[in-house]
């Protein structure tokens, strides 16, 4: 199968109206907001060196914040603002998706607009400003009739730079819940679907080029005072906006939104749940690639209706607990606590995605190792590798304490590479994930944890407060509960890690359903 006949192109194309439309809307809204704020600031500060310097410094600082971090920062900020407005005025707004993405991108667009605006206005020959005064112009007339037209080429260059930046950076708004062309890239990277990654990159690059050219047309139209050119450019932008409004108008806002975090297992599970809801006659969409701190808040606020989380994650991150309880007790307590926030813990799917110490099966048999306690005796001659956060997580401290573990060496690794590294003997032990398909692929074994140092990470299905009494929804999801065992999930994850048409989350979700309930 060649790259060009790959059916995933078709799948990617099917998402285009939704992804492109959202991308265009959030980018142009952000750009418009950025211009509305920046241009007056540039005009007001052009003759005031101190405020001008402060403004440019602030804009430069914003620019040094990585795009992803800036977008992520706006989510908690808006959550806080929303809770304040709720307390004071009784109204709240969604801190999820469009609003934080637009605000962060608008902030991001300000530097080039401000800098070029100020440079353009200050670069005008003072004799011409004097002449404007001399022929009898007031200050506003001088600004509109002389200064702005003369600064236009430099200002437009700034606006075009901002447009290209915003359209590119908008691909990073996926994790805070704003659908964009970044959905292709995030999903593609996580499921090793390079067709999606390429598609997302090309689509956003083409969009950036198209908008840049349209703005260029407007600029040359204004400069040559050709109404036709300026009109064509403006019509092009307007057509782009209009075209992106069409798909939203047809879509029902009553859809159930299934959330997913940013890794393959979550993409598969969200596709599975979406399919189940649709099979039950409910309209449903999947909103994937959400940051793991964003997704719980989004559920609480009702921006998404359901998603799968893991008991140990909520235990530590939402309940802020460091003690470890047996599975059933922990689940029960979690359920009660979540119920106080009207979040329904519908049940467990049947598998855990926990950290586990993993070694090759043959090696374990040769050394007679079955549990972490067995491993502890050999640890001083072995090396261990974990992902970027593992060695600073409470699980690692708990493991060391419970078993007296002390390894010869420890290394950090990209999670995808750990399994191959331990299989090839490059490291002796890895801190892997129990549901990872690569455990089966490389013939590895996850060691038992008899002292329960690692908290349970049962996959659990959560429902938003507004869906607490939704019986049709719950009935549609019930068939999944307790049906997906660890072996099945590992195989599903292994399939999703492949690089062909059968490895797309939709295809794997269909396979998974046939396996667990579709027979």
């Amino acid at each position: 199968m060649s790259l060009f006949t790959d059916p995933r192109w078709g799948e990617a194309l099917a998402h285009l109206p939704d992804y492109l439309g959202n991308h265009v809307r959030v980018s142009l809204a952000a750009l418009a907001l950025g211009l509305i704020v920046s241009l007056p600031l540039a005009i007001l500060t052009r003759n005031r060196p101190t405020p001008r310097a402060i403004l440019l410094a602030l804009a430069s600082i914003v620019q040094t914040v990585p795009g992803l971090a800036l977008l992520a920062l706006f989510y908690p900020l808006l959550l806080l603002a929303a809770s304040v407005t709720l307390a004071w005025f009784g109204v709240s707004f969604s801190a999820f998706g469009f609003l934080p993405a637009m605000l962060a991108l608008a902030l991001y667009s300000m530097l080039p607009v401000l800098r070029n605006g100020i440079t353009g206005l200050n670069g005008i020959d003072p004799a011409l400003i004097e002449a404007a005064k001399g022929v009898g112009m007031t200050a506003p007339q001088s600004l509109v009739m002389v200064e702005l037209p003369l600064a236009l080429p430099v200002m437009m260059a700034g606006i075009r730079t901002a447009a290209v930046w915003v359209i590119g950076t908008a691909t990073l708004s996926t994790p805070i819940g704003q659908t964009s062309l970044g959905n292709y890239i995030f999903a593609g990277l996580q499921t090793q679907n390079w067709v999606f990654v390429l598609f997302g990159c090309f689509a956003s690059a083409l969009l950036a080029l198209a908008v840049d050219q349209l703005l260029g047309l407007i600029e040359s139209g204004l400069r040559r005072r050709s109404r036709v050119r300026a009109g064509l450019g403006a019509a092009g932008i307007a057509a782009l906006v209009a075209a992106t409004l069409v798909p939203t108008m047809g879509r029902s806002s009553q859809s159930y939104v299934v959330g997913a975090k940013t890794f393959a297992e979550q993409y598969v599970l969200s596709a599975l749940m979406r399919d189940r809801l649709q099979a039950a006659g409910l309209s449903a969409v999947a909103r994937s690639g959400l940051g793991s701190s964003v997704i719980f808040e989004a559920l609480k606020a009702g921006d998404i209706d359901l998603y799968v989380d893991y008991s140990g994650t909520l235990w530590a991150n939402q309940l802020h607990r460091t003690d470890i309880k047996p599975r059933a007790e922990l689940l029960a307590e979690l359920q009660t606590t979540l119920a106080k926030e009207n979040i329904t813990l519908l049940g467990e799917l049947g598998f855990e995605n926990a950290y586990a110490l993993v070694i090759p099966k043959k090696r374990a048999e040769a050394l007679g190792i079955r549990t972490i306690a067995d491993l502890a005796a050999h640890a001083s001659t072995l090396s261990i590798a974990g992902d970027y956060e593992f060695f600073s997580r409470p699980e690692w401290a708990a493991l060391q304490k419970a078993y007296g573990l002390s390894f010869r060496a420890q290394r950090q690794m990209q999670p995808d590479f750990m399994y191959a590294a331990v299989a090839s003997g490059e490291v002796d032990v890895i801190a892997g994930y129990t549901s990872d398909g690569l455990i089966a692929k490389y013939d590895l074994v996850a060691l038992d944890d008899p002292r329960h140092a690692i908290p349970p990470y049962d996959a659990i299905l959560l429902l938003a407060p507004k869906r607490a009494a939704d019986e049709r929804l719950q009935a549609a999801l019930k068939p999944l509960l307790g049906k997906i065992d660890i072996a099945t999930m590992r195989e599903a994850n292994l399939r999703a890690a492949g690089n062909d048409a059968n490895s797309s989350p939709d295809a794997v979700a269909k396979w998974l359903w046939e396996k667990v309930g579709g027979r």
Partner: protein
Amino acid sequence: MSSRPMIGYAHVTKSFGALKAVDDVSLDIAEGEFVAIVGGSGSGKTTLLRLANRLIEADGGTITVEGDDVRSVDPVALRRRIGYVFQSGGLFPHLSVADNIGITPKLLGVPAADIATRVDELLELVQLDRAAHRERLPDALSGGQRQRVGVARALAARPRIVLMDEPFGALDPLTRDALGDDFREMHRKLGLTTVMITHDMTEAILLADRIAVMRSGKLLAQGTPVELSKSSDAYVLELLRTPRRQVERLNALLPQSGAA
């Protein structure tokens, strides 16, 4: 009317920091007069000119224009009723010749059709071909043509007073000569009151009715060329000696017409 000057400076001062740019200057310019203000760079001549239409505000003294104290007149309205010719044109590079010329009438709210007629009249007056130049941008004009447009722009709103800031300084000698003569003719025909700044005494003598000499912010002398030649001030006499010497040397170097 004859007792009241068109422009009157009385004990006017203006400082920029420690520098006294204009130092207690009094000068009256009568209706219909063509006055040249002559001085070197930094003499305060440009400042003196710009005080009249409030491009620069005076520190002290009184300036009147057509009998009104300029401080009591809105500066924008004042500038619209006084024509101003800028050094090297000061044309707006993004506007066509016609739009440059019509700018002050447009600001005054004159209907577009009337402005178009006026622009054509003015192009004829400053001897620019209407068809060839009307829609051009200033960059496509020669230096002399630009300055002709600058003059037309200053005259567009039919001012009675025209201020000129070294209008012909940057032009080649032939163009300069022709433009000077043409403007002198317009001044007479339209009954203008003109104040021109120049550093060139020859130009001042050839064009102006009366000459005012500035140095270090002070008005050293004023009067017709003949009156000035009787001045006792060494700087004034030195300024007058230069054109004379030039004439003598030219006469020595060039054969007199008809002498061959």
